[in-house]
């Protein structure tokens, strides 16, 4: 079998990005979660918020380590495997990625040392600023990366000269048509994912009857938050869908597995799409619901895949199924949130075993939802790297062979399969230990036992 460098490069990119998104989603949410706790502590002056905060900062620091090391890999992928894409688009995407590096990565990385190790070495306001900068850093990072990603999906503000994309209007480039929706959808997804991780940990502690005070606060706070975020996310997702219909009709047709352009189309709940024969097997459909959801009217027109030449169509099965996986998990999330309202009303939020079990299951599922959503949008963009303008097949270096990519892909797989399970194990160990009461009294700030300090160690600063 001939090894295809394009397909293997896509696989490699998917592999390294997927493992970057997961810790990133968690550290993104946790940096804001720590703020909610700091705020609560300031207004109530209760110690318990600090204990919860100290507990999560340890998990934060592990996920940060994983996020940083998997992030260093990313910019080099554009060169090693996508050099022709880089040569063509760098005039536009280069500055966006560079701004990401400048504003975000540095804010995070340079202030993190102070945030993790320096609570007793710097005045409280400086430590607070460091924490704020880390949170801002993660937000800026998403802003620039998603601007670049959205430009690949819905390019705007460019001129195409000699096969190279040159900038014409930076505002149009950054705020391209799909960017606001993608940014909102992703940021809320990261918050929802993190919130479910917090809920799951709280549920686990409650089921074991440990640290009731801490766990019940974690659970209550985050379920309130989710009561807002989950419905909001469904609303934003719907807007994002309308945007896709307008700008990337072929992607929408693939996501919905619609072959014929028609009005009043049904919603395909499940099917096995057959790309060869341009049809679906075993389809379960709800009449008119497709048009109602996708176009917000019963006879709204939805373009079918047959309107696009075969070579311009994305794969159908993957985005179709990954989208259903994401939406399905979203519905489960909503069910958990609604159940929490009822249980809260009945005062049974912390002691219903079935509910706690459901909460624990939602944590891994919410990470799966992030990956499923991302798979939908990226596979749905195929066969283009710059939608409608530059093909994925024309984006890899001419010198690259399938064998080389296979070796590098196996290398990334081997290393990631050692370090990520190790990271998850370490986090599980931290969770099992629970919010320890002792550590808030010691000078250990990040949970690293041997902390670097000055010889003249004068501890005062913020009172624990």
């Amino acid at each position, binding site marked *: 079998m001939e090894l295809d460098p394009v397909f293997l490069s896509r696989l490699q990119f998917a592999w390294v990005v997927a493992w970057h998104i997961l810790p990133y989603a968690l550290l993104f949410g946790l940096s804001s979660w720590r703020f909610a706790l700091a705020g609560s502590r300031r207004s109530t002056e209760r110690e318990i918020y600090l204990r919860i905060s100290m507990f999560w900062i340890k998990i934060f620091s592990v996920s940060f*380590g994983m996020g*940083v090391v998997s992030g*260093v*890999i990313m910019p*080099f992928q*554009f*060169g090693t495997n996508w*050099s*022709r894409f880089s*040569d063509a688009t*760098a*005039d*536009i995407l*280069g*500055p966006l*990625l*560079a*701004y990401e*590096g*400048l504003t975000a*990565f*540095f804010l995070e*990385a*340079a*202030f*993190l*040392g*102070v945030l*993790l*190790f*320096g609570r007793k070495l*710097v005045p409280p306001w400086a430590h607070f600023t460091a924490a704020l900068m880390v949170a801002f850093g993660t937000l800026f990072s998403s802003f620039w990366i998603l601007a670049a990603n959205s430009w690949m999906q819905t390019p705007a503000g460019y001129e195409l000269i000699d096969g190279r994309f040159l*900038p014409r209007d930076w505002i149009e480039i950054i705020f391209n048509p799909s960017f606001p929706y993608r940014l909102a959808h992703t940021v809320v997804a990261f918050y929802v994912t993190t919130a479910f991780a917090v809920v799951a940990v709280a549920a686990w502690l409650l089921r074991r009857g440990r640290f009731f005070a801490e766990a019940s606060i974690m659970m209550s706070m985050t379920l309130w938050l989710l009561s807002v975020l989950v419905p909001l996310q469904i609303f934003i997702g719907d807007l994002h869908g309308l945007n896709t219909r307008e700008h990337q009709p072929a992607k929408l047709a693939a996501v919905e597995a619609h072959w014929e352009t028609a009005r009043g189309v049904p919603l395909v709940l499940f099917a096995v799409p057959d790309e060869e024969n341009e049809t679906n097997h075993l389809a379960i459909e709800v009449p008119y619901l497709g048009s109602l959801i996708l176009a917000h009217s019963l006879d709204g027109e939805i373009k079918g895949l047959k309107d696009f030449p075969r070579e311009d169509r994305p794969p159908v099965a993957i985005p179709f199924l990954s989208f259903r996986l994401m939406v399905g998990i979203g519905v489960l999330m909503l069910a958990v949130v609604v159940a929490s309202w009822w249980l809260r009303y009945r005062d049974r939020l912390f002691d219903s075993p079935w509910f706690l079990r459901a909460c624990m299951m939602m944590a891994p599922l919410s990470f799966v939802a992030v990956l499923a959503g991302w798979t939908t949008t990226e596979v749905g963009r195929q066969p283009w790297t710059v939608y409608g303008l530059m093909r994925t097949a024309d984006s890899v*270096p*001419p*010198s*690259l062979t399938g064998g080389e990519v296979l*070796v*590098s892909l196996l*290398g*990334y797989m081997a*290393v990631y399969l050692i*370090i990520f399970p*190790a*990271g998850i*194990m*370490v986090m599980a160990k931290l969770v099992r230990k629970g919010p320890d009461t002792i550590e808030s*009294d010691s*000078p*250990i700030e990040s*949970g*690293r*036992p*041997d902390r*670097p*300090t*000055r*010889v*003249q*160690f004068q501890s005062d600063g913020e009172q624990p």
Partner: protein
Amino acid sequence: MNPVLDFVPIWTLILGLGIFFYVLLDGFDLGVGMLHGLAPDTGSRNLIMNSIAPVWDGNETWLVLGGVGLLAAFPLAFAIIIPALYFPILVMLLALVFRGVAFEFRFRDAPHRTFWDHGFCYGSAVATFAQGVMLGAFIQGFEIDGRHFAGTTFDFISPFSLMTGIALVFGYGLLGAGWLILKTEAEIQAAARRHGKICLVGVLLAVLIVSVWTPLQHAEIADRWFSWPNIALLAPVPIATALAAFGTWRALSGTSEAGTFIGAAILFTLSYIGIAISLWPMIVPYHYTLWEAASSPKTQAFLLVGTLFLLPVILVYTGWSYWVFRGKVRGDIGYHH
């Protein structure tokens, strides 16, 4: 194009500084990583690790800045050099991943501490060697067809690039030793002085070999250094190198605590300037100049606006975080309060 405002020199300077900061900063912590492997016991290993724990990830982000800076300012160079170095880059990245997670895991995953210790030390060594190989391959130049790399996978391997790989191991080792002399005391410091001397000898040998080898291989480089009046104008570079080497040796032998690090930094600066003089104005050696590989003025201008504001801020707070963690690291503080 815009004949009045030429951003290329500014971007050359910014990127040059960025890469230099990376080499200096991650250089010392990669060097510390390698010396970590020579430490005799867990206590001193913990201490050595702690001397760089708060700063290493900040240091490593200069690598990202170098990468995306090259992409944004000189995309043609990025699109040729990076695929040409496919495997050294892969090996470097995987090694950096291992050493990066080792910081967190050796404390939190105590049952496998030895594994992560090895990951840290070998990861540092392999990443350093890979960077040295890349430097050598870069100086030797790549086979190019139009706007693409046209060579094959293993073009990067040559006696010269293997030599520069080993040279950089000694170089980062020297920087690491300088850092440890600055940050530690007693036995660890004494060991760092011993290791530093070995590294300094290695570095000087390497500088000598490169200085003879490069002009022999490339007539244009020989011409640049040895023609009149260049030979007189450029003479300060080798002379300053000899002086810096002498000063570093004195610092290693005496009681100076900052001397070794400063001396090593000066040696790196001079070597860096030496390479820049040899290759100027090429960014893809012997094929494309900085101006030919540059992105559009509009791109360079857009990024420059933010960079001129952000870069000083970054430098200030990088300096601040070093200031916060200044002084010696001590192993006995941590559990007791």
